[in-house]
């Protein structure tokens, strides 16, 4: 086992996959000589060379498109968005080009790419460096969406995403990059976390909390606080947002009968809405209370601290919502 930061776990996963498979390459802005704005590819350029570690011009469309085209021709490109917000310039490539290719090739041409980058708020990044619009791609057929919360999952999921034959959008919460540390398996173990499997990060009996990304840590903190009040939360870390692991969610719902869904994106039309709908469709009679969502307010992520705090969900928000739900 190795004790590493969240960021280092992602770095090592990519590194080891590039060592294992010469078809894997990385492309992005400032990722080569500088090693990436956050240093996720630090050392790659020197080790793997400029053909597999591509310093791109500021061209998100091309960055994703190169990964897509190379994927159609048998390679596995990892495209870094300096901030995941900038994926909007490459939206068409993800949704219309990568997403549909297998479908329009009669199942012959899979597009194994990973589009990855730092996401999320809580760092004063303001409007264009804080977004969590996983719902855009959640809504897109043919695309998988991943967001880990712990180093071991980040490591195992990144490896799985690279090996997966489909386009994967991989959200790395920048708040976790250096704050969260943990043990990951040694390279020799070939550790993989299969896409589409949630993980229960804390067992409990009163309320099922379904969440992902940085919110997992908030939920765990809330759970700790509520334990003293005799309220027991079961925290499910989705890890993969699409495809959704409904089995794990439903099993937990049947046990607790109460559900709190926590996500950082604006509440309306978010991933939580789909989860909630599926639970009511598939386990309505097991529920003892309405499903509750804690999410960001329907706004952009503003700059000033009091504004950002107001918009984004907090540990307190989870605690209050869980208390009310427990009392229902």
């Amino acid at each position: 086992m190795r004790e590493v930061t969240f960021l280092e776990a992602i770095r090592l996963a990519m590194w080891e996959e590039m060592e294992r498979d010469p078809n894997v390459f990385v492309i992005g802005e400032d990722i080569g000589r500088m090693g990436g704005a956050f240093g996720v590819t630090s050392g790659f350029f020197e080790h793997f060379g400029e053909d597999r570690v591509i310093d791109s011009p500021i061209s998100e469309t091309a960055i994703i498109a190169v990964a897509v085209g190379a994927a159609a021709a048998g390679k596995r490109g990892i495209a870094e968005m300096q901030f995941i917000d900038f994926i909007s310039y490459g939206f068409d490539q993800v949704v219309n080009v990568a997403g549909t290719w297998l479908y329009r090739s009669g199942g012959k041409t899979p597009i194994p790419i990973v589009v990855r980058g730092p996401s999320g708020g809580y760092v004063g990044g303001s409007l264009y460096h804080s977004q969590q619009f996983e719902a855009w791609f959640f809504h897109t057929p043919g695309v998988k969406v991943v967001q880990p919360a712990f180093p071991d999952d980040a490591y195992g999921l990144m490896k799985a995403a690279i090996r997966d034959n489909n386009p994967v959008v991989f959200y790395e919460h920048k708040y976790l990059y250096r704050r969260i540390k943990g043990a990951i398996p040694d390279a020799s173990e070939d550790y993989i976390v299969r896409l589409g499997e949630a993980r229960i990060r804390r067992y409990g009996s009163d309320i099922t909390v379904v969440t992902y990304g940085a919110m997992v840590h908030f939920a765990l903190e809330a759970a700790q606080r509520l334990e003293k009040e005799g309220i027991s939360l079961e925290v499910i870390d989705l890890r993969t947002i699409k495809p959704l692991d409904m089995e794990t969610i439903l099993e937990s719902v049947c046990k607790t009968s109460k559900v709190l869904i926590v996500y950082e994106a604006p509440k309306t039309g978010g991933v939580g809405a789909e989860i909630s709908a599926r639970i009511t469709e598939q386990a309505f009679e097991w529920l003892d209370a309405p499903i509750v969502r804690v999410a960001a307010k329907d706004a952009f992520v503003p700059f000033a601290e009091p504004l950002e705090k107001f918009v984004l969900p907090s540990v307190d928000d989870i605690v209050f919502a869980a208390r009310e739900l427990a009392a229902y």
Partner: protein
Amino acid sequence: MGSTRTRRKNGQQTAIAYHERLEKSDLLEIYRRLWFARIFDEALYDAKKKGRLRRGNVYGSRGQEAIQVGTTYPLRPDDFVSPIHRDMPVFVFRGMTPEQVMCQIWGKANAPTRGKDSWSHMGDMSLGIVHSTSMLGSTIAVACGVLWAQRLDGRRDRVLVAYTGEGATATGPFHEGLNFAAVHKLPLIVVVENNQYAYSTPVELEVPTETVADRAKGYGIPGYCIDGNDVLEVYNTTCAALEHARAGNGPVLIECVTYRLQGHADHDETRARQYRPVEEIELWEKRDPLPRYRQYLLKTGLFSEAELPEPPPDIVEQIQKAIEYAISSPDPEPHTALEDIYDESAGVSR
């Protein structure tokens, strides 16, 4: 080493010395604006270092002042600009107060964005300052819409100066915007601040042509490649571009060759001396546009040494006061985060 890059071989240059028409007071004002920009930058770095500015990045423009000053000085009050992250002083040159700009940087309630966004992501259409976003290049295309609205209003003579780094000329919207402007002969002046690095990426990895100005050929428009550290050359070229654009001849691209003396932002100071040769930085320190212009003014014989203080103390004071004002200004009320998402004030277009 790319240190001697001045890249003026292919670019067009203006032969007309428009600056000879400037009054002594104009020459002095240009001097003071250069210093305003310099002190502005220094004061923010200082505030960040001392922990007085605790949120957001500071994108320095040390060394690029001649572009900010030279491109704005010849503008008419009714022209437009769209400044980006290395153009903060332009907001002031085009009519915002230093207090407003500082409040924006400190995220205060009385900032143009009311604390919603930071740094250069602001504007004021009543001053002709077009809001840009972080999405590099996107405002070049937006500029076409602003100019089209002028056409609809019968105001084809209003020009828009859109700023961009050389790196951002690699984006799709840069190309689409400039292509559109050229096809429709919109009075758009694109000022490319070629400071030779986009974050860590050298210009060779952003732009394949010998000069950035060469890109203009693809749109069939004039492309100037000039010394961006010479405020009068920038001024003269802008004057020529304005004449061209106002006369209905379409867009102009001006590449101002300069150098980013600091890191990409304040967090990048150490690294920026690793991914770039230190000798290169030192060489460009010597091409500082401020002493160069001062030298020129002294040579004209119009000014005494004492008339050209380095820095002008009243500007230092003005900026410091603006910072104090921002720091003591109220933070936005949390609930205002939900304001300005939709405008429901009227059912008809304004």
